[in-house]
C-alpha cells in the first residue's frame, strides 16, 4: 500500500462484513429458509442487479441501483400479498450475500477491482436495515400501525440506512486514498440526493408493493429501475468520452508546440489533489479539472509561441491577455461557463480570484518553475511561490500544495 498509515478502517469494515456474513450463513444453514419462493425471487433480483453493475464510475455513487434496491426491499419486507412473512435478519443477509456472490462472478472473472469494498458495503447496509426492522416486525410491534404510518416508517428506516451507507463509503474512500474524510462524506451525502434517494424510494415501494400484490410487483417495478440503470450507464459513457475530448483539446497546445508535452495533464492532476486538500466538492473539482486542462489554450491565439510555454514569467498584462483569449476559446467549447471563468481569471491578482483560479495559477507556476529548475527544482519552485504569496499566489493554496507534495506523490490520480 502506498498509504503511509495502516488502513485500520478498511480492515475494520471488511472484518465486520465478513463476520456478519459468516454468522448469518451458519445460522441460516442451521435453521433453514423461511418462505423459499420469496427468498428465491429476491435473490434472483439482487443477482440480476449485480450482473448489470458497472465499474469505473466517475462521480457516480451507486453502481448497482437495482441490486441495492432489491436487497433493501427484502430487508424491509413484512408481507407477501397480504400474508405476513417470517424471515429474520440473518436470512436477509444470507440471501443477499449468496445472490451478490453469484452476480459478482463475471466481474471477478474479468479481474475488475473494487468488488470486496462493494460487497462489504452491501452486506453491512443490508444487515443494518434488516436488524433494525425484522426482529421488531416479527414480534408484532408494528401490527397496530396504520398503513401510511407504516410506509413512512419504512422510509425513515431507509434514510437511516442510506446515512450509514454514506459513512461506510466515505470511510472506505478515506482509508484507500488518504483524502480528508469530511469532504468525502459531504460528497457521498450530496450524491445520495440523486440515485441514492431513488434507490431508497424504490426499496420502500417494492417492499410495500410486494406486500399488496405479491411477487408480481418485482418485475413490474424492476423495469423502470433497470432503465434508470441503463441511462446512468449511458451518462457515464458520455461523461468519459467528454473528458477524453477535453483532454485532447488540452493537448492541442502541446501539439501546436506552444507548451511542453504533458504539462496540462500534470497541472490538472496536481490541481485536483490541491483542490481535494482544500475540501472542494465533487462538482467544483470537475470544473477545476477542466479549467486546469485548458488553462493554456489562449496561447493558440499567439502567432509566435511563448518560450517554453511558460506564462508565469511574462508581464502581468500579457498573462491576462492570454487568459482572456483562453476564456473566449473555452466559452466556445460548451463546457460550463464556470470553467471559462476560471480560465479567464487565472492571471488576476489572487485577492480578486475565485479559489479554483487561485489553485490553477499557483499550480501552473509551480509546474513551470519546477521544469525550469532542473534537479532541486521542486523545492526551489515552492520557495519562490511562498515568497510570491504576498501578491500573486494565495498563501492557503501554496500551503495546500506543499502538503500535497510532501504527503505522497504516488497517490496522485492520473488524469486524462
Amino acid at each position, binding site marked *: 500500500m502506498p498509504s503511509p498509515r495502516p488502513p485500520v478502517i478498511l480492515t475494520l469494515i471488511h472484518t465486520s462484513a465478513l463476520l456478519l456474513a459468516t454468522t448469518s450463513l451458519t445460522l441460516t444453514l442451521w435453521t433453514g429458509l423461511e418462505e423459499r419462493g420469496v427468498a428465491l425471487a429476491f435473490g434472483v433480483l439482487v443477482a440480476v442487479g449485480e450482473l448489470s453493475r458497472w465499474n469505473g464510475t466517475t462521480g457516480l455513487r451507486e453502481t448497482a441501483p437495482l441490486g441495492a434496491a432489491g436487497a433493501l426491499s427484502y430487508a424491509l419486507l413484512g408481507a407477501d400479498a397480504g400474508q405476513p412473512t417470517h424471515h429474520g435478519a440473518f436470512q436477509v443477509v444470507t440471501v443477499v450475500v449468496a445472490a451478490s456472490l453469484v452476480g459478482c462472478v463475471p466481474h471477478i472473472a474479468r479481474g475488475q477491482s473494487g468488488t470486496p469494498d462493494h460487497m462489504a458495503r452491501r452486506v453491512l447496509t443490508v444487515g443494518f436495515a434488516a436488524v433494525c426492522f425484522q426482529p421488531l416486525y416479527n414480534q408484532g410491534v408494528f401490527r397496530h400501525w396504520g*398503513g401510511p404510518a407504516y*410506509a413512512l416508517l419504512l422510509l425513515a428506516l431507509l434514510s437511516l440506512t442510506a446515512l450509514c451507507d454514506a459513512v461506510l463509503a466515505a470511510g472506505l474512500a478515506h482509508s484507500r486514498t488518504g483524502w480528508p474524510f469530511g469532504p468525502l462524506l459531504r460528497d457521498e451525502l450530496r450524491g445520495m440526493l440523486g440515485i441514492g*434517494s*431513488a434507490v431508497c424510494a424504490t426499496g420502500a415501494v417494492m417492499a410495500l408493493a410486494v406486500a*399488496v400484490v405479491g411477487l*408480481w410487483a418485482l418485475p*413490474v417495478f424492476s423495469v423502470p429501475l433497470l432503465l434508470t440503470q441503463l441511462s446512468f450507464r449511458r*451518462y457515464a459513457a458520455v461523461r468519459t468520452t467528454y473528458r477524453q475530448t477535453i483532454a*485532447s483539446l488540452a493537448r492541442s497546445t502541446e501539439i501546436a508546440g506552444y507548451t511542453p508535452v504533458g504539462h496540462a495533464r500534470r497541472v490538472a492532476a496536481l490541481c485536483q489533489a490541491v483542490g481535494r486538500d482544500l475540501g472542494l466538492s465533487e462538482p467544483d473539482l470537475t470544473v477545476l479539472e477542466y479549467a486546469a486542462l485548458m488553462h493554456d489554450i489562449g496561447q493558440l491565439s499567439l502567432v509566435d509561441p511563448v518560450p517554453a510555454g511558460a506564462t508565469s514569467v511574462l508581464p502581468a498584462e500579457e498573462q491576462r491577455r492570454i487568459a482572456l483569449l483562453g476564456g473566449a476559446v473555452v466559452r466556445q467549447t*460548451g463546457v460550463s461557463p464556470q470553467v471559462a471563468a476560471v480560465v479567464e481569471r487565472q492571471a488576476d491578482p489572487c485577492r480578486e480570484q475565485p479559489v479554483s483560479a487561485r489553485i490553477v495559477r499557483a499550480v501552473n507556476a509551480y509546474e513551470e518553475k519546477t521544469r525550469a529548475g532542473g534537479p532541486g527544482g521542486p523545492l526551489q519552485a515552492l520557495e519562490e511561490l511562498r515568497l510570491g504569496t504576498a501578491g500573486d499566489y494565495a498563501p492557503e493554496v501554496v500551503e495546500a500544495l506543499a502538503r500535497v507534495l510532501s504527503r505522497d506523490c504516488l497517490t496522485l490520480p492520473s488524469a486524462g
Partner: protein
Amino acid sequence: MEATPARARAYVVCVVLGALLCLRPLPTVHAPWWAVALLAALYAGCEQIARRRFAGTFYPVLLAAAFLLPPPAAALVPLPGALFSRVEQGSPWLRRSWRAAQLALAVWAAARVHWALGGRNAVVASDFPYALVPALAAVLAFCLVLTVLDGGILALAERVPLRRAWRGLFLRSLAPIGVHGLAGLMMAVLWRSPYGPVAALLVLLPMGVSWWVFAQYHRERAAHQATIRALVQAVDIKDGYTRGHSERVGQASMMIARELGMDDSRVELLRFAGILHDVGKLGVPTRLLRKDGPLTPEERRVIELHPEYGHEMVRGIGFLGEARAAVLHHHERLDGSGYPYGLLGSQIPESARVVAVADAFDAMTSTRSYRRARPVSVALEELSRCAGTQFDPLMVTALVRALGRCGWHPSVTADEVQSSIVFPPAPPVSSGMKG
C-alpha cells in the same frame, strides 16, 4: 417560428371541442374529488419542475389517474398543469389550450379503455397479472391518441407528410410511455392499498431520478458535441478558412456514407471524421498557414505533417473509432503516391477514402485566397477524372449520385473571418436528438 396557419388554429379548436365533449358527463359522475384535486396538483407541480429542469412531460401521474378515476374525471387531471405551463415562444394561449386538450383527450381514451377491460376492479383487488392487460391496452390507447393528434398538427402547421409523422412519433413514444405506464399502474395499486397515497407518491421519486439522468445525459452529450467543434475552432484561430470547410466536408462525407448504405452510427462517425480531418493543422506554425503565395518544398513537407498531428490529437477520444483512421489517412491516394504512409488501394481505410473525396470536392467548390470557386459540375468531372488513381471510384460515384438526388446545400458559408477570436456561433450538430 412564423405565425400559426389558420388551418392549424381550426384544428386546435376542433381538438378543444373534442376535449370538452369528453368532459360533458362530469356533473353526473361520482368520483373521489379530493383524489382528482390531489392528482391534478401533483401533475401541475411535476410539470413546473420538469419544464424548468429538463425537457419532457411526466406521464406516470396522468396514467395513474387514468387507472384510478372514471374517464371524465381523469380527463380533468392534466388541465391545470397544461393551462399554467410556461410557453417560451409563439402565442401562449393557443399552445396551452392545445396541450390541455390533447392530454385531456389522451387520458380520457386511456381511462375509457382501462374501464372497459375491467381494469378498475383488477386495480382495487390488485389482481395480478391480469391487471397488466388493461393497463397495457390503456397505454397503447394513450400513445395512439397522442400520436394521431401530434401528427395532425405537424402535418397542418409544418407540412410534414402525415404517415411519416405518425410512424416516427408512435414508435418513439411507445417505450418511454410504456415504462411510465408500469409506474402509473404501481402508483394506482398502492393508492388503493391500505398504505394509501403516501406510498403511491414514493413511486414518483425513482421515476423523477431516471428522468433527471436522461436529461443529464442529453446535456452532457450536447456539451460533448460542442467540444468536438471546439477542436476545429482551435484550428480556426490559426487558420481562418478551416471552419466552414470542416463543416462542409463533414456534410459531404455524411452524404457519401449514407449513399453507400452505412448504418446511422457509422454515418455519424464519418461526419465527425469530415469535421475533424484537418485538426492537425494546429501543429503547423501559424505563419506557414497564413502565408500568401507559393510554398517552398520544405514548407510543403511541414504542412504535410498535419494528418499525423491530427491523429496524435484525436487518438485519445475513444468513441471516434474509425474516424481516427480517416484523420490520419485522408491524404493517401489510391495509387500509393499520397502521404503520410503512401498506402495503396484497399490498404487505405474506407473512412479515409470517403473523407478524401469529400475534402477534394469542397476544396474545389469553395473560394480560396488563391483562386475562385468552381461550379459543382466541373468539380464532379474533375473527381471522376481522378477516380481510380487518386480517389476510390466507389466513393466518387456515391457522391455524384447523392448530389444528383439532393443537390449541394452547404449549411455553412465560408465567411471571411479575419479577426482571430470572434467566431459566429456554430450550428447544432444534428437537427434533433433521438430520444
